[in-house]
């Protein structure tokens, strides 16, 4: 294993992560909700009385984040290497998988691990390993 030192940004990663943790803290302490993005979006497809507006508000907040950022500074690079077919397949798998598995990087990875949930620990290990394996096959497997 070789470390990509020029790309490695531990300080910004840790600080940005703490801000993500703060967002999750706000949502659970004031709204009593888990800041799991797949769960928040997925819940909109199963609307319940009084359970929709906060979900839409949260999603709008996330969509507004890059706009707010641009008021103060240029946006960081967003490098997307996947082509259209890969984006569509990836999105479909992420949509099915996160709902079937009841969570994603935020719901299981951040909130679940913070709650010391054994289910979330298992889910996080599984999706991380699946992510590692997928990238390995796509970048290094089959003579790639």
């Amino acid at each position, binding site marked *: 294993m070789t*470390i*990509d030192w020029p*790309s490695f940004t531990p300080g910004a*990663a840790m600080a*940005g*992560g*703490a*801000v993500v*943790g703060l967002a*999750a803290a706000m*949502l*659970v*302490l*004031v*709204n009593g909700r*888990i*800041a799991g*993005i797949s769960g928040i979006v*997925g819940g909109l*497809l199963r609307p319940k009385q009084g359970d929709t*507006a906060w979900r839409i*508000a949260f999603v709008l*907040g*996330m969509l507004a*984040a890059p706009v*707010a950022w641009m008021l103060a500074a240029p946006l*960081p*690079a*967003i*490098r997307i*290497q*996947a082509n259209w077919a890969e*984006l*569509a*397949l*990836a*999105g*479909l*798998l992420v*949509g*099915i*998988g*996160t709902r079937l*598995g009841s969570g994603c*990087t935020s719901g299981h*990875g*951040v*909130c*679940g*691990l*913070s*709650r010391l949930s054994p289910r979330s620990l298992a*889910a996080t290990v*599984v*999706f991380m390993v*699946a992510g590692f*394996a*997928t990238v390995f096959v796509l*970048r*290094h497997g089959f003579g790639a």
Partner: protein
Amino acid sequence: MRNRTAHDLLAFASGLVFGLGLLAAGMADPAKVLGFLDLAGAWDPSLAFVMAGAIAVGLVAFGIARRRTTTLLGDAMHLPTGRDVDRRLVVGSLVFGAGWGIAGICPGPALVVLGAGRTEAVVFVLAMVAGMWLFELRSARRAPAAAA
């Protein structure tokens, strides 16, 4: 639920702060996420530090939340109660991880990149919502699915 407006404003603020945190952490850049997932290439461990920073704050917040029966606004806590590692959790996480590895995009960054106006994110998010909708169809055919 009382204070509905306060809840909705707080949810907007939480989403905004969440998105700003992802941008600051470099996690709205799919190439950087793939740099973490590519263990066999030139590895960028940054994502692990994002998780560590988030969990350090989260441990305190959820530690407080666990000891409370109501939120700071006096409403019910909606925390997951499931403890079983079942087949559905494992299969779902496998499928999610495979999709994550293809493009380096998970649901949170997808929304941030969409907000940045990138057309690639339109394709990804539409496909993601379609996937979630397929799950809802399947759940509706079976017994009512348990949430979270």
